[in-house]
């Protein structure tokens, strides 16, 4: 079996404000192995981005709190790491690509300066010429002409800006890359280009990646393993084959697949999931999905389902 890189155990994250407590992540367990891509799928408010921010320890100060659980990267426990330790880790061992390339770059620095910034911070003894050479290399890697490194973000298109963001994230060859909806803001043809490039780079640098998305198509085309999140929990986890081709599914996963129009088949009506996500300030007792579930039983309203494992496939549902 491949080597473990990141292990999240029993993670609880809450956002506390004066008025309410939002339970964003509720008992999340996840293991990521070296070199693999894990797709983290779920709707808005499922806790996908919160999970990523917890790994980076970038939760909003004083509001976002890790209540319980541990996140272990190699031999470092991130939940207990100091701010100084985290600064060494971020951008070096773990990097993050944000959703919106238009707002994640600094408009008053050239892209060359923004890429070299990461290198300077993490390689104090590196010479100026070496850094500049490395910047050229990285730009070439992500498919941008190095002549453009003196230009500012507004001179680039959306797809190219996302390439710059990816270049920054990969500058120090991190062990783990968190990509939070990296292609959602891009057009399909550009999305295809960026996804292909990310897959190539991952191969070259042997980086592990968590790809956060709500697009099951993107997941099918790029990920080795898939985790489906709902109301702060992983309700189904497995290899791509388990999730896309196996017959047993969590009813929520079935609903998600029923909601996307299939290009290969002509369907008259979609089969969406009724209702809405539960309010994260007031989660229901028992299974969080029971109010919308077409296969709801009495036990679902009382007890939380346990993780049921069958080989590499895990489903959290009383049906199994």
């Amino acid at each position, binding site marked *: 079996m491949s080597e473990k890189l990141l292990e999240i155990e029993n993670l609880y994250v809450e956002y506390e404000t004066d008025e309410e407590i939002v339970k964003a992540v509720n008992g999340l367990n996840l293991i990521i192995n070296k070199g693999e891509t894990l797709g983290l799928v779920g*709707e808005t408010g499922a806790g996908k981005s919160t999970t990523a921010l917890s790994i980076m320890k970038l939760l909003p100060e004083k509001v976002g709190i890790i209540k319980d659980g541990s996140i272990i990267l190699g031999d470092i426990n991130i939940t207990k790491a100091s701010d100084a330790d985290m600064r060494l880790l971020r951008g070096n061992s773990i990097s993050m690509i944000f959703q919106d390339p238009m707002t994640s770059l600094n408009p008053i620095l050239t892209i060359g300066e923004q890429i070299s910034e990461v290198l300077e911070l993490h390689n104090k003894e590196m010479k100026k010429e070496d850094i500049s050479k490395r910047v050229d290399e990285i730009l070439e890697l992500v498919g941008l002409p190095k002549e453009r490194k003196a230009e500012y973000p507004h001179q680039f*298109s959306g797809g190219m800006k996302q390439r710059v963001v990816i270049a920054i994230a990969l500058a120090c060859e991190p062990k783990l890359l968190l990509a939070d909806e990296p292609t959602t803001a891009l057009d399909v043809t*550009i999305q295809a*280009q960026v996804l292909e490039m990310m897959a190539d780079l991952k191969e070259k640098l042997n980086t592990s990646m968590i790809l956060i998305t709500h697009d099951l198509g993107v997941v099918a085309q790029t990920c080795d393993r898939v985790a489906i999140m709902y109301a702060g929990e992983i309700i189904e986890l497995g290899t791509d*084959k388990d999730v896309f081709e196996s017959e047993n599914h969590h009813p929520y996963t079935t*609903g*998600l697949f029923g*909601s996307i129009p299939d290009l290969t088949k002509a369907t008259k009506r*979609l089969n969406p999931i009724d209702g809405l996500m539960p309010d994260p300030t007031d989660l229901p007792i028992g299974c969080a999905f029971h109010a919308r579930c077409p296969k709801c039983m009495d036990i679902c309203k009382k007890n939380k389902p346990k993780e049921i494992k069958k080989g590499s496939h895990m489903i959290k549902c009383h049906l199994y």
Partner: protein
Amino acid sequence: MNTPIIQTKNLKKYFKTPKGDLHAVDGVNVSINKGETLGVVGESGCGKSTLGRVLLRLIEPTSGSVYFEGNDITNYDKNQMLEMRKNMQIIFQDPYASLNPRMTISDIIAEPIKVCKTITNKHEIENKVQDLMETVGLAERLINSYPHELDGGRRQRVGIARALSLNPKFIVCDEPVSSLDVSIQAQILNLMMDLQDEMGLTYMFITHDLSVVKHISKEIAVMYLGQCVEKATSDELFNNPMHPYTQALLDSIPIANLSSKGNKKRIIKGEVTSPINPKPGCRFYARCPKSKDICLAPDLHLKEIDNNHQVSCVLYD
């Protein structure tokens, strides 16, 4: 043969910019029959939203004409347009920005009725609003809520109810589901298709999501930089895409199953070129894998290849 409810002839809209004319819509001919849906697909900046707005004359066309039920509405004056708008409505993309935050749901839905004075009795307006809310699946208790109290899916339902309030014949749907989660998106798509069956509505459905457009449309027009490059029935377009751009576009869609994983795809290189003062000839030339010298010849038109299949590409001359 059905008579087209809306038709455009050589419709153009150029925006003036300091660098020159931006050809947002450049000679588009479309027609939609009653009770049918035309899907308009294309990437950002290809002019699909502008086309929708020019059709309703929310933006004045630079040249060309728009016909509604056979009448040229391009030169209608303000009063005639007000009358006309009872027949044609629009649903906007962003349900957060298209609802006035200071109006209640009932005010928002009733506003078109008040503007066009189709119903004047206060009590009747109230009844109409309640009917509309029921039609689009909004709970009655929300009648006095404000938009910020609703989630995205419900807001989009308000937008749909508002568009329906004048019993229009034709609705332009400008990316109505792209800001919604998939499960909510499916609910809204089902609702829109049900409404079409019940009321015989005609839609022009603008989107960049190809799987959605295939699901909802009978006919699809693919746009690239202001021009319509291919037009066909939905099945025909997906089974037999002819224009190199359409082929690349269809290949770029990530499909949610594993059978096509790892297949080498025809990914097109480069990005959309500038729509400002475009060069003559095919606008896809710079990115096209099959480009030849004759592609730069100045006249390219949609050519009928097969029944209901039109392509604008020199490969099929």
